[in-house]
């Protein structure tokens, strides 16, 4: 955000840069600005996202195409500034589309796609990139040319609803139970329908910019073994290292967590002997990680043939190393279905 402020200060970014007093107000002013017909952006992390919690639900409920980057970081308490996924996993049912990226290039590319997705289906999108691991890294990145991006993503022109004195409309009214129920159901249908849009935009982006990340939902990497690791985000780079060196394990990376890629995961995981879900968050009180629970639910009709292992790793920024992943894969052969591993050196 500081760099964007500098771009705006130097006149390189033609935008109004708002500096507000809190993340709560940041998201609130974005809702106002997008409702008034402008494209908006912000970035946040951890506590900031938690402070936005109430506004996140209002944004999706009002069907406003807000886009933001979340630099994934741990939630208090105890206070901790490092990377994990507790912040965005806590917002997984907020009605936002969630896209997790593996590296900085993918984050840039996904952000461009995110606007197109959000504006087409009228739902907000959060692009989730690992805090520190991706936000504080130096990596060669190809920034697409403005002209190409403008062609791919033309000017935002809302035709649905906009705050316009020529055409007065009421946004965010008080709603009784019956229409509330219907509107919420409509929202879920829109999220499900967004799968076609995400897929289309993934192809369109690949054609134009010659870069592609799986089918837009998941990315399979040497997934032709009996054992597979399922994970999200930058740790997949480390897992790919493991996969390359061993001959007995593959990887399925979930890029799009909301909408949840049920069909894609069934296709890629059905019939596997061992499914190891490695994730940087925990569903406290449930006994497993949230991604694990959702994958097991998606694969329920096929669970008899598979053993599911829940690996909780990297909470509060704990390093995840090749040696530990190797160790889990080795030990998984002796583990029982449903076992939970808190992986730490």
């Amino acid at each position, binding site marked *: 955000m500081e760099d964007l402020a500098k771009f705006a200060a130097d006149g390189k970014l033609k935008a109004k840069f708002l500096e507000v007093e809190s993340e*709560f107000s940041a998201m*609130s*002013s974005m809702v*106002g*600005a997008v*409702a*008034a017909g402008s494209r908006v952006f912000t970035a946040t992390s951890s506590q900031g996202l938690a402070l936005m919690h*109430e506004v996140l639900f*209002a944004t999706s409920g009002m069907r406003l195409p807000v886009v933001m980057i979340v630099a994934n970081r741990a939630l208090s308490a105890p206070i901790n500034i490092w990377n994990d996924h507790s912040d965005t996993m806590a917002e997984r049912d907020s009605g936002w589309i969630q896209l997790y990226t593996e590296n900085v290039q993918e984050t840039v590319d996904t952000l461009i796609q995110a606007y197109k997705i959000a504006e087409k289906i009228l739902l907000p999108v959060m692009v989730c990139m690992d805090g520190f691991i991706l936000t504080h890294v130096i990596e060669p990145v190809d920034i697409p040319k403005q002209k190409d991006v403008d062609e791919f993503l033309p000017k935002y022109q809302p035709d649905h609803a906009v705050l316009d004195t020529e055409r*007065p409309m009421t946004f965010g009214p008080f709603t009784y139970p019956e229409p509330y129920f219907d509107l919420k159901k409509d929202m879920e249908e829109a999220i499900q329908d967004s799968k076609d849009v995400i897929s289309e935009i993934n192809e369109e982006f690949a054609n134009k910019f010659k870069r592609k990340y799986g089918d837009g939902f998941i990315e399979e990497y040497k997934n032709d073994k009996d054992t597979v690791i399922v994970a999200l985000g930058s740790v997949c780079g480390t897992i790919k290292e493991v996969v390359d060196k061993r001959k007995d394990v593959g990887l399925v990376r979930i890029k799009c967590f909301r909408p949840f890629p049920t069909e894609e995961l069934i296709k890629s995981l059905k019939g596997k002997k061992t499914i190891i879900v490695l994730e940087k968050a925990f569903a406290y009180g449930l006994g497993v990680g949230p991604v694990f629970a959702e994958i097991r639910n998606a694969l329920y009709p096929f669970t008899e043939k598979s053993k599911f292992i829940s690996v909780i790793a990297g909470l509060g920024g704990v390093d995840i190393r090749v040696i530990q992943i190797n160790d889990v894969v080795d030990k998984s052969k002796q583990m029982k279905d449903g076992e939970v591993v808190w992986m730490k050196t």
Partner: protein
Amino acid sequence: MAPGTRTCAGCGAVLAARMLLKATGKDVIVCEATGCMEVTSTQYPTTAWKVPWIHVLFENSASVATGVKAALEAQGNNHTQVIAYGGDGGMVDIGFGAVSGALERDDDIMIITYDNEAYANTGIQRSGATPFGASATTTPAGLESQGKKQWKKNIPMIAVAHGSKYVATASIGYPQDLQKKIKKAMQVKGARYLHIHAPCPIGWAFDSSMTIQVAKLAVQTGMWMLYEIDDGAFKRTMTPELKPVDEYIKLQGRFKHLKPETIKIIQERINASWKEMDNLEKCGVNLRTIL
């Protein structure tokens, strides 16, 4: 505003909204906080608002207005007035952080509180704007309670302490004064703050036919004082010969438990405040230059 909102009979808040829009005209966007006006005027799929109107949450109408204004400016629209509107709960208490932020940044919006002196929409819980001695559902009068223990939070003075170029108080009992202030505020660029006193028959426990009378008496007794602070210069817009506060208090059920000695405390506070306002005017202190 269209007629036929679902407010209670004798609602002061809906009068404030009507008077506001009469003064602003149609080139305006209203960003409203959750509260009485929001629930009664926009029951889906109907609406009473004939101007663009948006409600997001309870405590963010000022931030929403900041965003709307920024978008209009980015689109080259520099004429439409953007209003952050809410009750005392939404503006004085739970949404005060957003109000303070917009005032501090001097965002080009009008921030307007309609003050019915309680969280009226949710069941008359006390707010920071509830007056001393009033019985509210969370500060009920009882054998060991004389109602709210604290004085009313002075938001207009807090607004001017942010450096706001135009701050005013108003009352639905004096529509011409109110509309004059709105029109004046519209001429000013930056964050402006208006605080409108709007009696609530249900919350304050008076007959719904008496709303205007109660509003006028609040001003005539000094329980609510009408003034403006234009570019830092404080000036009362009404200087009546103050009536005894008892005339205002005795009309309302929320004060019926008050003992004469408590009423005396209130009277003394009003007298002292009125005298300080004399001093403020005489001295010509510029409140915006105090840093």
